[in-house]
């Protein structure tokens, strides 16, 4: 292979760009996660509710956001949605890093749809007798969920949820198409400026892997420390 020169892509300038991108990717992951989790719980509860409209809404949200590629959703959020907003809101958005806001919006709904299904499976894995007993004791649907069912479901839900977090971390790379200056965007920038694709992508792949392996390790640790008790 013609001269592999790692130093060429790790000059002060390039290192700065890549670091900025890495930090933004982490921020996108964190912010999205914090918003997607409650949203996903809400959607999961909708799908499990006895109210038909809620079930329909939950189903529509899950299927809608899961069956459209994330790239398309991001393009829609960035190029289409702002045009539908009132003038004042749109101007405010453009003044305040629209690329990041739209990336978070797109990532949140996409991730929440998948998380919702994992949460729903987890809740359904808790024997239905638990819910029935809670209702019989006088708890409302929501209270039964909050105090009895969800705590038991958590152990089952966490591993797939960590898996979705891993997907989220990788999905942040797609935000490059709407101009979000995260790690992949900066990788493309460094590659253009240095003419060295292999070195640039080696560094960036290692950066993604580092966090991915951390997340996977977390999952393995959790499953060892809190194994699912057989019913």
């Amino acid at each position, binding site marked *: 292979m013609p001269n592999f020169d790692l130093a060429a892509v790790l000059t002060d300038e390039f290192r700065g760009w890549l670091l900025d991108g890495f930090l933004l990717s982490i921020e996108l992951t964190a912010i999205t996660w914090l918003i997607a989790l409650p949203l996903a719980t809400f959607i999961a509860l909708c799908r499990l509710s006895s109210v038909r409209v809620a079930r329909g809404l939950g189903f529509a949200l899950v299927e809608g956001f899961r*069956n459209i*590629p994330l790239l398309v*959703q991001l*393009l829609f959020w960035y190029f289409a949605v702002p045009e539908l907003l009132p003038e004042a809101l749109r101007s405010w958005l453009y003044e305040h890093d629209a690329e990041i806001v739209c990336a978070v919006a797109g990532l949140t709904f996409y991730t929440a749809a998948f998380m919702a299904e994992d949460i729903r499976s987890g809740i359904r894995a808790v024997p239905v007798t638990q819910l029935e007993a809670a209702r019989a004791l006088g708890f409302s649907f929501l209270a039964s969920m909050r105090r009895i069912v969800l705590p038991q479901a958590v152990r089952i839900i966490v591993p797939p949820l960590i898996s979705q977090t891993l997907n989220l971390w990788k999905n942040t790379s*797609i935000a490059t198409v709407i101009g979000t200056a995260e790690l992949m965007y900066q990788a493309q920038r460094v590659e253009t400026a240095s003419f060295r694709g292999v070195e640039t992508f080696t560094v960036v*792949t290692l950066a*993604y*892997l580092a966090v991915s392996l951390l997340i996977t390790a977390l999952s393995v640790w959790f499953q060892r420390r809190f194994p699912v008790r057989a019913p």
Partner: protein
Amino acid sequence: MIDIIDTYWLYFLVGQYPDGPLGGLVLTLLLGFTAVVLALPLGVLLGLARVSVRRWLRWPVTALVYVVRGTPLLMVVFWAYFFLPSVTGHKTNQFTTMLAALVFFNGAYLAEIVRAGIQGIAKGQMECARSLGLNYTQAMRYIILPQAARNMLPSLVNQFVTTIKETSLGYIIGLAELSFVASQINTQLLTRPVAVFGTLALAYFILCFGLSRIAYYLEVRRSRVAT
């Protein structure tokens, strides 16, 4: 939105064909289908390696699968773009690049589906086969894999859905698949982004939702027939 579909349906469907390379929805389907079909043997090989008793086979493949699953698909696409010509000596175009990336990436994911499918077949099956005189390869080929295949079918259809969505990344390397075509139309029209991207989203939704419903019914049928 109807008028956009009306004017541009051919472009959405086949891109520039026949006055240029194939594109649009047909390209997306072709790419997705070919990728899954080619990824399957790779997935089976990797899956078998993952359950193998031979450590020299199991460990490197496990490491490879972990690396590929920890890397964004877009990164794998860029790697295919830069590495492929020097490794194969062939000049590759965007379609081949995207295909290679998808096959490799999905092969690693299918390895897990295959592994789960194989391990889901009762251990007794393998023991029976061996005691009847079949060797490991014959047992796999005639007894285990056919049963595992039936189990895996819903997962495989789901993987097809995922692959269809993944083809949208071809946009970034200039492959004229459905999303790229829609984007070109948007830059032509300029003032109708909601309609253009709405149409794009709808097209994917119909395609993927339809396929995932098929997977769902396969799953329902399988659990009814399961022994």
